[in-house]
C-alpha cells in the first residue's frame, strides 16, 4: 500500500484520483437523495438544467463562483503556509463593514475613486480580522482553527451590532444600511441596459467576476513567482527546514493570514458593492465554508480553485432551482454535498489510491 505511493504518473495523481474522489462524494450525495425518497438522476438533471440550461442560470452560476473563488483562494494561501483558516466566513462578514463604511462615507467623491477605495477597505478589514488569529498563533501558539472559528462567532455578533446601531437609518425597521450609491458596481444586466439598450437575462453577475480572475492570477504569481510566496510554501511544506533556511515562521504566519483574510474580504465586494448595494445581515451565507471545500478540491492551486468554484457555483444555483422544483429536497442538501466533498477529497484523499495503483500496474504488466 505504501510502496505504491509516488510511483504513479503525474496526471493520475492530480487528475484521475481527485475525479474518482469527487465521483464518490457525488454518489454518496445521490444516496442521501435516494434516502429521502427522490430520484437522484432526476435531481441531478434539474440541477444541471437550472444552472447551465439558460443564460440566467449561467449568470447565477458565475456570480456564486465569484464568491467561491475569493474564499477558496483565501483558504488556499493559508493552506500553503500550513495554516487552516476556517474564518473566511467572519473575515468576509467584517469586510462588508469596511466596504459599506467607505461606500457610504465617501459618496461625495466620484465613483472611480470610491470603488477602488471601498475594495481596499474590504481587503484591509478582512485582513485585520485574520491578522489577529495569525498573531495569536505566531506569538502565543493559540490553535488557529479554534481562534478563527471563535472570530466567526464574534464577527456575527459584532456586525449585527454595527448594522443595528450604526448603519441602520433612524426610524427604519429593516435591519440594513441605506443604499450604497457611492460605490455601486453595476451588474452586466444594468450595463447592457444603460449603455447598449439591450435586455439580457437577469442575474446578479457583475464586474467583480474580473476581480476574481485577477485575484486568482495574483495568488498564482505570489505563491510561485515571488520570494514571499516561496517562503510561505517552504514553511507549509517543512517548518523546520524553513527555519534552517532563515525563514521566520512567526512573520510568515502573520503575513499569510493577513493575505488570506484580504482575499476572503474581497467576497464582500461582489456581494455588498455588486449585488446587495447595502450592508445586510448574514450576507456571507456560508460562502466562507464553501471556500474550504473549493480549496481542497482545487488542490490549493488557483486553476483548480477556479474550476472547483465553478462546480460549486453550479451546485448552488442548481440546488436552489432544485429546492424550488422539489420542496422535499431542502437547499441545505448543498451543505451535505460540501461536507462529503471535504471528506472524500480532503480527509480520505488517498483512500482509493491503492486500488487505482493496483489497476494501473496490472495494466502495465500486460
Amino acid at each position: 500500500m505504501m510502496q505504491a505511493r509516488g510511483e504513479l504518473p503525474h496526471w493520475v495523481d492530480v487528475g484521475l484520483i481527485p475525479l474518482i474522489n469527487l465521483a464518490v462524494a457525488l454518489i454518496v450525495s445521490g444516496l442521501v437523495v435516494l434516502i429521502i425518497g427522490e430520484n437522484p438522476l432526476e435531481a441531478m438533471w434539474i440541477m444541471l438544467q437550472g444552472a447551465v440550461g439558460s443564460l440566467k442560470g449561467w449568470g447565477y452560476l458565475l456570480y456564486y463562483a465569484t464568491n467561491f473563488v475569493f474564499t477558496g483562494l483565501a483558504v488556499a494561501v493559508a493552506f500553503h503556509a500550513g495554516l487552516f483558516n476556517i474564518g473566511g466566513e467572519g473575515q468576509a462578514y467584517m469586510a462588508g463593514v469596511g466596504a459599506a463604511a467607505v461606500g457610504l462615507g465617501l459618496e461625495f467623491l466620484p465613483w472611480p475613486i470610491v470603488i477602488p477605495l471601498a475594495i481596499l477597505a474590504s481587503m484591509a478589514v478582512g485582513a485585520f480580522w485574520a491578522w489577529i488569529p495569525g498573531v495569536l498563533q505566531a506569538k502565543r501558539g493559540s490553535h488557529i482553527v479554534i481562534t478563527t472559528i471563535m472570530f466567526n462567532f464574534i464577527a456575527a455578533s459584532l456586525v449585527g451590532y454595527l448594522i443595528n446601531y450604526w448603519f441602520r437609518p433612524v426610524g427604519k425597521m429593516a435591519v440594513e444600511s441605506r443604499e450604497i450609491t457611492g460605490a455601486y458596481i453595476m451588474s452586466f444586466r444594468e450595463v447592457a441596459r444603460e449603455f447598449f439598450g439591450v435586455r439580457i437575462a437577469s442575474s446578479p453577475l457583475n464586474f467583480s467576476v474580473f476581480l476574481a480572475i485577477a485575484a486568482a492570477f495574483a495568488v498564482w504569481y505570489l505563491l510561485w513567482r515571488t520570494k514571499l510566496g516561496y517562503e510561505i510554501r517552504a514553511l507549509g511544506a517543512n517548518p523546520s527546514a524553513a527555519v534552517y533556511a532563515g525563514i521566520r515562521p512567526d512573520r510568515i504566519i502573520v503575513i499569510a493570514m493577513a493575505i488570506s483574510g484580504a482575499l476572503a474580504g474581497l467576497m464582500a465586494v461582489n456581494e455588498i458593492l455588486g449585488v446587495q448595494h447595502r450592508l445586510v445581515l448574514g450576507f456571507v451565507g456560508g460562502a466562507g465554508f464553501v471556500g474550504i471545500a473549493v480549496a481542497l478540491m482545487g488542490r490549493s492551486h488557483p486553476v483548480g480553485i477556479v474550476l472547483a468554484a465553478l462546480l460549486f457555483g453550479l451546485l448552488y444555483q442548481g440546488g436552489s432551482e432544485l429546492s424550488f422544483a422539489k420542496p422535499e429536497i431542502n437547499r441545505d442538501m448543498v451543505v451535505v454535498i460540501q461536507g462529503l466533498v471535504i471528506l472524500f477529497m480532503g480527509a480520505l484523499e488517498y483512500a482509493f489510491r491503492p486500488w487505482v495503483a493496483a489497476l494501473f500496474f496490472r495494466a502495465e504488466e500486460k
Partner: protein
Amino acid sequence: MDLYVELLASTIRMSVPLILACLAGLWSERAGIVDIGLEGKMLIAAFVAASASAVYGSAWIGLILAIAASVSFALVHGYASINQRGNQVVSGVAINMLAAGLAVVLGNEWFREGGRTPALPPEGRFMPFEFPSLDDIPIIGPLERVFLSHSILAYAAIALVPLTAWALARTRFGLRLRAVGENPHAVDTAGISVAALRYRAVIIAGVLCGLSGAYISTSLSSSFVRDMTAGGGFMALAALIFANWRAYPALGACLLFGFLQAVGNFTQGASVGGVQIPVQFINMLPYVLTVVLLAGFIGKSVPPKASGIPYTKDR
C-alpha cells in the same frame, strides 16, 4: 436572591453539554486523535434524539439512537484518521458540515417544518427532578433548586468527570490510552494495537457527544432547531486546552463557560450603571473569553505529544 439561585441553576444546565463534549475531546485527544468534529457529532445527536423521541414517544429511545448516530460519525472520523491517516482537522470540518446539512435535509423531509422537529411532550424529554415540598425551607429550598433540579443526564455528566479521571489515571486501559497519545511507537513495541486503542477512544468520544446532543434537544429544550449547538463543540475544545487535557480542570472550565452563557441569557437587554449593553456584546462574551484563554494569558497548556499525528508503523 431568587435571581442568583436561578443564575446558578442555569449555569449548571448550560455547562452540562460542554462537560460531556469536553470529556469526549479529552478521551479522543489523550489517545492522539484531534477532534474538531465534536460540534457535528453533538448536532447530529441532538437532531436524532429529538426526531426519534418525537416519533417513538420515548426520550430513552431518542437517546440510544442519538448515541448510535454520533458513534457512526465518530467511526467515520476514526477511519479517516486511523486507517487512512488523513488530516484530522479536515475530517472534523467535514463531519461538522455533514451533520449540519443532514440534520436540516432529513428533518425537513421527515417533519416538513423547514428543518425543525416537532415539540416534544414531557414523556419525550428528560425532565428535571422536582421536589416541591422542599421549596419553602429557607436554606435547603434554594440549594435544592440549584443542585437537584436537573435531569438525569446532567448528573450522568457530572459523574463522568471523576470516572474519566479515574479510568485514565488508574486503569490499565487508561494508561495504555494515554501512552498511545504520547508515544504510539512504544505502545506498538509492547505488542498492543495502536489502532484498536484509538478506535476505542474515538467510540467513547462518540458516546459522550451523543449524550451531549441528546441533552441539548431533549432536556435543555424540547425540539431540534438548526445549528442549535451554536459553537458548543468548539467551546468544549477551548475548555479542554484551558484545562490542559485533564478531567477536573475541564469541569471547572466548562462551568465557567456555562456561567457566561447563563449570564448572557439573564441579562438580555440589561443595563449596567445606567448604560444599556447591546445584547450582541453579551452574546459574544463566551467566544471572546475563549480567545483570551487560548491566547494563554492565563497559563500555558501542553497537548498530548502525538495528538493529530497519524501513526505509521516503521518497516
